[in-house]
């Protein structure tokens, strides 16, 4: 093989690799990206079934119910427009409490409830997720 041909081959291989990466990534993104929903979005657009999503909003006052097994909890997430009942088994973050912001990762069930595999709570004023800051802001204005 002449040097020029080899160079061309390498360039083509490089471009092929980039294209392969892009295709692979985009096809995986299509069914793996977890979209962010507020309870109001779910009411508007319908239940996103069969995929992992994130649900964000406020934990409704008086809604946290601890289950008898000591590790499961049920609570309600609200954004002032709609509410979603959430079930979670695990150690809730230390700053997870009623009237405070939360992002739950998990899936919706056909009955409209949400099963969370992970909870993210507001850490403190400095380390608040921006998407949550946005949602919380909306929630606050809605309440006024």
């Amino acid at each position, binding site marked *: *093989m*002449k*040097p*020029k041909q*080899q*160079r061309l081959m*390498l360039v083509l*291989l*490089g471009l*092929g*690799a*980039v294209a*392969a*990466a*892009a295709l*692979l*990534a*985009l096809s*995986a*993104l299509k069914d*793996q*990206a*977890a*979209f*962010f929903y507020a309870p109001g979005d779910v009411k508007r657009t319908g239940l996103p079934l069969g995929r*992992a999503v*994130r649900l964000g909003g406020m934990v409704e006052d008086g809604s946290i119910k*601890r289950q008898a*097994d*000591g*590790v499961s909890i049920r609570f309600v997430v609200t954004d002032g427009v709609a509410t979603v009942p959430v079930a979670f*088994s*695990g*150690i*809730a973050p*230390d*700053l997870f409490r009623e009237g405070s912001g939360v992002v739950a*990762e998990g899936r919706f069930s056909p009955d409209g409830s949400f099963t969370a595999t992970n909870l993210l709570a507001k*850490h*403190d004023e*400095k*380390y*608040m*997720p*921006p*998407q949550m800051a946005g949602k919380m802001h909306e929630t606050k204005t809605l309440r006024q």
Partner: protein
Amino acid sequence: MTAEAGLAALWFAATLAAMQLALAALGVRRLLAAQEGRGLTADLLGAVRPIAIVQGALAAVAMALLIAVFVRSDMSVLLVAENSHSEKPLLYKFAGAWGNHEGSMLLWVTILGLAGGAVAIFERTLPRVTLIATLGAQAAIALGFYAFLLFVSNPFARIDPAPLDGQGLNPLLQDPGLAFHPPTLYIGYVGISVAFSFAVGALIARDVGPAFARAMRPWVLGAWIFLTLGITAGSYWAYYELGWGGWWFWDPVENASLMPWLAATALLHSVTVLATRDGLRAWTVMLAVVAFSMSMIGTFLVRSGILTSVHAFAVDPSRGTFILALLVLYIGGALALFAARIGTVRAGNTFDPVSREGALVANNLLLSVILGVVLIGTLYPIVAAGFGVQLSVGPPFFDKAAGPVALLLVVAMAAGPLLRWRRDDARVLVVRMAPPIAAFGVVLVAVLLLGGGVALLPLLGIALAAALAVASVAPLWGRNLLRVPLFTWGMVVAHLGIAVSLAGMASESAFTRATLVAARVGEPQRVGPYTVTLDGIAPTIGPNWSALEAHLSARRGSGTVIQLRPQSRFFTSPVTVTSESAIATVLDGQLYTVLGQADGQGRVQLRLWWKPFVTLIWLGGALVAIGGALSLIGRLRRERRARRRTGDEEAWA
């Protein structure tokens, strides 16, 4: 006065960087003109070298002064007041100097300045034009970051009136890891920028060849060793500090350190082809540009405030914009220079598809694919947010998209060292690959028979790890171990390290046992082979926190009892609760325990994991870094010996 002196040192350093850039530009023009036989022959390297050294020293002085105000808890300095507290342990006052936005950027330029100084002092083999252009490129990078510090992110700003005490450091950062993890990663990032400066120098001087590759290689290797250490240490830190039981979360910030590592790994292998076989010239330069771009994107992701995590300190939009501008300027400039000059790079030596070079090209392509996947997955949520769509891309995406490619890469990695340079025979390769293939088959069958119900990816991971381990040590077979060159040892150890780490990852993913319980005192809980009993709960107190501590005793069969003390810690400045996991390391894995909340009925939540062979993940990472170090030492020694030999010849002549 200390803070003002620090600011002055920073201004001086910035001025020197500007001078360094101007003189280097002038010097390159003069030297190139002189090469063509016109103009002055006097060169400016004699001036640029000391400037680079003093510039680095001044940046180090500024960093030392910042550490001094932190250690003295001078609350009249805004940064100290916002991020420190007088009752914090000394180690965290010291390391807290870079546990915030401004300080960490200052550490970045300090390391950059010191690296530039080191190039000026130690680099003796490169042609003068290339070296002077390299130092110019280094000054150009430094200048942008000095401007960033001085105009939008001054670490030495005062606050008046000074508060009585500071607001404290994020408790998650109050860990010995803070003292090591950021500096190691920064040395890695900055080392890559030095490699990039070499590439720019070689492009400007039209000098892309083996000599340039040999000069660049130690920097790439050094940067890569530190990135490896930084990532390994960061992974272990997240593992024990967050209390989530995971060792890698595909968090954008983790990806920000992984992407430069992937690019540097590719560069490391292609630079070897360029240095030994004079092939892959343009590709190597391109990879240097890509690796640098990745470390810039990493800095941007982590430091611009676009992401939120313990790493993202600032949410000031002007800073994000400034870093984005720097990013566009540097990456755009680098790509433009590459496009303009790549035509002057002549094609290097050719090789057969079945050869060591061929395997290294495969390695490079597969690493590039993984890099592309990680890059897209990391940037996609940010781009989508720009269009008003909120989404997150998590482990399922990365595992599915990058996992299979990574396993393919392991195959290429096993075959590569068994191939000859330039040309080899595919049939002979199959014979040489027989032992690793046998290892793959045996382990695959063994796991299927014993393990049962293991998912495909971890199953392949374990079997491939065994094959890779066998293939890694194959280059040593039948050789006198004392006469094997040090850099060959380096390759063997590093590849073995990947095999060890892969085995740990696959084992953790396949065989981890977890349980979550609300436990009463005295009630035994089962996890994996262990029985864990809660003996009691007691309050305890530390230097700047108080805690609830669970007393656990774990026992395996009739073995000795292991005591574990997971805590739930309460910090007052800032007010935060963190959970401190307790981990017992035994020969074949780790028992990982986390204390949750009490339920008010005499029970506390306990999360228990049994993770077989999980320690191999970080042990493998350490082996990879050790391999890199052996290789670096071996290369440097050989270079020195070669130089001494040519020196002797000159003396003879």
